[in-house]
């Protein structure tokens, strides 16, 4: 009889390695469920979940919505564009208004780091962080590790490099926490301007040469350049970034071992990944998307159990 140690999933930093294992075990069951002719179970039929998105999202939002519907929860969607947020309502007021309609769980994406943590101190509903600014994106890190576990058998002992815009990436930070908690070795790789100043303090290796990074790793998780978050120029041009950090099929074929290629999406084809690399047999990008639904079902199911 196991349950999570937390009531909210705010970040990977706050959960234990046992929590991660439990989520994966339940996600295995749900992966089985979503591959059946009838892909739905009635577990959360008495629960209402609000997807509150203050920032754009396609994949994460669809994935959460599908996970909620597969669990038979009632779902309401909110996005800040076209809402009263534009009229000056505060975050707490907006969410309290949603909760007044008897909502049990909130899945929230917000551009400010710590927004879900703030909310968790003031409202009774369970909260799932679907990305807060440049801080954490816990479900993405969980599904990334789940996909590595599925492809390579286990995460412990594997060498994983995260390549790209580490500075602006919530996926990178959550992945570092998640991978380290499961006993993997982590390296970050990118132009020095896009690596946070004290990143070594997290116990990760740092590399600026992408070829060396690929030769070292078992898994490469490639990130997008987040131009929308960049307030200044971090590198001369996208073309120059591609020249030094873009990964193509030729680079993958020249390695003396098979590596696994991952990307949290959306891909900028021809920038961080060439098309032939993204569509090669190394890539598990679409498996990541499929596993996302199963992992999110497991998270929602386990949090609902905590009440």
């Amino acid at each position: 009889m196991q349950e999570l140690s937390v009531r909210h999933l705010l970040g990977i930093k706050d959960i234990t390695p046992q929590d991660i294992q439990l989520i994966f075990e339940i996600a295995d069951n749900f992966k089985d469920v979503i591959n059946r002719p009838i892909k739905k179970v009635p577990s959360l039929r008495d629960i209402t979940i609000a997807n509150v998105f203050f920032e754009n999202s396609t994949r994460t939002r669809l994935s959460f919505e599908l996970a909620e519907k597969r669990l038979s929860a009632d779902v309401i969607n909110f996005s800040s564009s076209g809402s009263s947020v534009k009229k000056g309502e505060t975050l707490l007021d907006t969410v309290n208004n949603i909760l007044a309609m008897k909502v049990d769980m909130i899945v929230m994406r917000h551009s400010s780091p710590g927004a879900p943590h703030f909310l968790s101190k003031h409202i009774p509903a369970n909260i799932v962080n679907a990305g807060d600014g440049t801080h954490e994106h816990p479900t993405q890190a969980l599904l990334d590790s789940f996909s590595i576990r599925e492809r390579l058998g286990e995460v412990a002992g594997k060498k994983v490099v995260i390549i790209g815009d580490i500075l602006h990436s919530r996926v990178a930070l959550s992945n570092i926490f998640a991978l380290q908690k499961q006993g993997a070795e982590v390296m970050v790789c990118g132009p020095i301007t896009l690596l946070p100043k004290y990143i070594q303090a997290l116990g990760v290796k740092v590399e600026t040469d992408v070829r060396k990074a690929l030769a070292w790793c078992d898994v490469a998780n490639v990130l997008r350049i987040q131009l929308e978050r960049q307030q200044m120029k971090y590198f001369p041009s996208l073309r120059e970034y591609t020249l030094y950090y873009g990964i193509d099929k030729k680079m993958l074929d020249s390695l003396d071992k098979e590596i696994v290629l991952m990307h949290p999406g959306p891909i900028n084809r021809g920038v961080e990944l060439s098309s032939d690399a993204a569509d090669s047999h190394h890539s598990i990008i679409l498996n990541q998307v499929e596993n996302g639904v199963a992992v999110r079902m497991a998270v929602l199911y386990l949090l609902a159990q905590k009440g």
Partner: protein
Amino acid sequence: MQKRLIVNQQLLEIMVTRLCHQLIENHGDFSDSVILGLQPRGKFVAQRIQHTLASILGKQVPTGYLDTTFYRDDFRRRETPLTANATKVDFLIEGKKVILVDDVLYTGRSVRAALDAMIAFGRPANVELLVLVDRLYTRHLPIQPTYVGHQVNSLQSQRVLVEWKEQQANEDAIWLVTKSDE
């Protein structure tokens, strides 16, 4: 805690053999029939039934294991959380005669959940229920078994425990357990 033996290994073996012959009476050569053991404990009964049928008929009857955790009606209403088990159904049950198998029939709620869970694998022609032990007068739902190994009259505070050698028990046996503080 007191433990009283209701069925010993020898009787249990006879009981399983009798249940298999009753099944053969209704299902003939099992060409259209499948067995579904309910996780976690009905799995062992289903394995025994499959094994005994194989020794009588000389063929393996398709057997799967069904986990009902996600279909239960007491989710979020229990003190202790439920742990899910693997579902392993490698065949479609569309148009088949399904025999649901569990060790103890008590409130009938797991069987209700199982009926719900089973539908995800197709629409069966009909469904029967086989249990080793039927606890009388304890049902919360109008559910009755088709094949019964043994009937017991028990108190709510008591528990019926089926032990198998596969689970590191000394021998196969069915016990009636009474907690001493109740």
